[in-house]
């Protein structure tokens, strides 16, 4: 990957960190107010205010504050959450695995199913199966994850009582081993389904469009002429080439999945980063908000970077120093 591109990524990181830092401090008024919010400020004693101001270095010049902020990040000190009364880093590390589990699984499952269905559908373009799938997924695509999550919760959780209404595990159950695993899966099922259902449609549509366009290419004719079995043409020739746009869009899709996770975790009270942010925003806990954004931004940037790095392996037409 070209140097320019790496610099782009670093610049992006810098922008995120800076925005995170400068936004509250640029708003008019007492910075403590912006950072801790009105409610917190009201309950704070004057001594606490002074202490916090000193601790957060708000009385120091701006550039020194920025430097402290940065060095804090490097040291792993992301601030202190007033709402949860604990270091931000700990809170993040507690919530991260759940979100990774949810989003990761959702990404894999929706990609797999969406892709395969897209290929099969595109191959049979015009026939009943394709028409059915297409219409079905177009409808599905129209529902925002909010609505799907709600629907699943209400139907399967409330009305049918098949699944728990919230949380990642049954609290205080102290299960271990397989039963723990089953419990987790049981709690995971609805939120995961909601997320998967949302994402699968776009994956399917993208694949199908690519496949349909690809089928007109001469090399597909070559493959047929060589007497290749239809299944092999579908996957070895069409499929492989259709993967490309999906991989390229991984970054975008992750962003979308994260937003989706935000809403789904909120609806299902699933203790991941999404719920954390929600609660943080409700409680106007700015250090937490900053911390979460920082972490998520870094993760997504890393993944994007990684995808760009390996893309030339998948598509040999892209030269390694494309930028």
């Amino acid at each position, binding site marked *: 990957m070209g140097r320019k591109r790496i610099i782009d990524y670093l610049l992006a990181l810098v922008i995120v960190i800076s925005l995170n830092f400068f936004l509250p401090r640029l708003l008019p008024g007492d910075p403590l107010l912006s950072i801790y919010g009105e409610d917190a400020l009201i309950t704070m004693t004057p001594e606490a205010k002074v202490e916090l101001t000193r601790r957060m270095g708000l009385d120091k010049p701006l550039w020194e504050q920025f430097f402290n902020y940065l060095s804090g990040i490097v040291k792993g000190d992301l601030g202190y959450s007033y709402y949860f009364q604990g270091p931000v880093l700990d809170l993040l590390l507690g919530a991260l695995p759940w979100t990774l589990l949810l989003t990761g699984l959702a990404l894999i499952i929706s990609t797999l199913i969406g892709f395969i269905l897209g290929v099969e559908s595109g191959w049979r373009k015009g026939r009943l199966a394709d028409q059915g799938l297409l219409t079905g997924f177009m409808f599905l695509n129209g529902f925002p994850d909010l609505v799907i999550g709600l629907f699943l919760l209400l139907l399967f959780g409330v009305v049918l009582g098949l699944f728990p209404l919230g949380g990642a595990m049954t609290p205080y159950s102290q299960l271990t081993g397989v039963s723990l695993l089953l419990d987790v899966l049981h709690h995971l099922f609805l939120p995961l389904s909601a997320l998967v259902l949302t994402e699968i449609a776009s994956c399917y549509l993208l694949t199908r469009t690519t496949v349909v366009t690809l089928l007109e290419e001469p*090399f597909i004719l070559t493959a047929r002429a060589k007497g290749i079995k239809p299944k092999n043409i579908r996957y070895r*020739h069409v499929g492989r080439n259709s993967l*490309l746009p999906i991989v390229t869009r991984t970054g975008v899709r992750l962003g979308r999945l994260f937003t989706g996770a935000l809403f789904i975790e909120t609806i299902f009270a699933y203790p991941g980063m999404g719920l954390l942010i929600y609660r943080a925003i409700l409680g106007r806990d700015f250090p937490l908000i900053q911390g979460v954004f920082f972490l998520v931004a870094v993760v997504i940037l890393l993944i994007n970077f990684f995808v760009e790095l390996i893309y030339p392996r998948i598509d040999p037409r892209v030269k390694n120093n494309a930028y």
Partner: protein
Amino acid sequence: MLEIKDLTITYGRNTVIKELNLTVPKGDVLAVIGESGAGKTTLALSLMGLCPGNVEGQIIYQGVDFLSLPEPQRRLLRWNKVSMVFQDLNRSFNPVMTVLEQIMEPMLEHELLSRKEAQKKAYYLLNKVGLAPVKGQMYPHQLSGGEKQRALIAMALTNDPEVLILDEPTAALDGLTKAKICELLKEVFSEKTVVLVTHDLSTAYQLANRVAVLYQGRIMELGLTKDILKNPRHPYTRGLVRSFPTLDATKDLQGIPGFGIEKQEGCVFANICTQRIADCTKIIPKLEKRGEREIACLRGGVVNLLKVEDLTKVYSGVTALKGVSLDIEEGETVAVVGESGSGKTTLALCLMGLEKANQGSIYFQGEKIVKWNKEFYQKVQMIFQNPQDCISHRLNVLETVCEPLVIQKLGTPEERIHKAKKALRDVELPDEDEFLNRYAHHLSGGELQRLAIARALVLEPKLLIADEPTSALDASIQAKIMRLIMDLQEKRGLSILFITHDLALARKVSDRVFVLKDGQVVERGLSTQIFSLPQHPYTRKLLQATANFSDF
């Protein structure tokens, strides 16, 4: 080996291949030539059973009708029995697989070899087509055009098919690469039966031993390559060869005027054929054997227009013509060359009936001419050497051009003027009243000669005898007049007997040449041959004396 019977392919309402019949014996290399839209690629694809249109008829490989087989069985035959080298170099390979993988793929897919063996064979094939082993590890976009073509050829050979089909194997290549690929293909073609589809006549000439000329989905002419391309007998093939620039062509390029109509009753070529007769638009000509080749033409190919047998003319003791025989076909230019006194003008005069020959016969359109009457003159016209002389000073332009019509009593006065104006436009002279009222002495040499041509053309003759039409003119005017005459030939299918002493000029405009010396024909043949390899010493002498810029 391969038999195509009554193949008809339609796309929607469009019939692209019409009742095609063709047999390719084992070991033959057949080139199917034609212009774009003739249906060549459709034909090629159908031989693999990959044509997306509606296909009717039979394609029989060694007794098995490919088209009647269900798709799974066709798949088994593909690449094993018959394989194809595609046209689109850039997009016929899968961009994300290496070249080697793609060459190995058909071997593995049909379970002929193990992975290791397939790889060995793939490298062997790469070597055979002249590609370094390292190219196998590369991806298609990393290869040059010529290399991609070689890779496609290698890929086609993997399962040792008996039949090879190639779709424009040299179209996208430059000259040198083309030559090298042709070399390679000649090697590859040994022991295989090949159908080669192309619009490039020189490739067809180099690689194929037989050729089929395709026009609008029908075969017009079929036979040995050498015969067909060097001496085309079907008017379309002739037009095709004339329009293809090769190093040995001497005559200037001429196109095929107009364009064919889709829904054509009768012969597909009838619409633009210059020798068509009424039946041509009603009856579809079948491919019939004539000599060594087969032709689809109701008239049996290019017909003979004028035949002169043994013409002898004596002027008080001097034998001007001694047993001269020559012939002119439809739509061709025959040059009669020789020095002054060789009898050229006498020949012209005898042909026009202005002098009576002592011996010999003249046949026009198959009939012997005994009387030179109006019908004859409507079909055969002459242009004389000196335009100043041959146009009366008493008549103005309009009257000059109308004169033949008046004599032949053709049309009403308005119609005659109309025809006259058209003839003037054809020779690029103005048709306004101002010009029409001018007299001969007000016109330049070039204009006069054009006027003479217009006058000759107004009767719409089939044969024009031009006796030194440009020797009295400047070179630049000469060029324009010759250009004009050749255009007229292209547009109207005019046959021209061109009499001249200027060999360089004759070379540029004629299809065939007769060399006249002292009233006798000493050499005759195709222009391409006579001017490059003259046999008779007299011809050689003439050529040496011809205008040239060389330093010898």
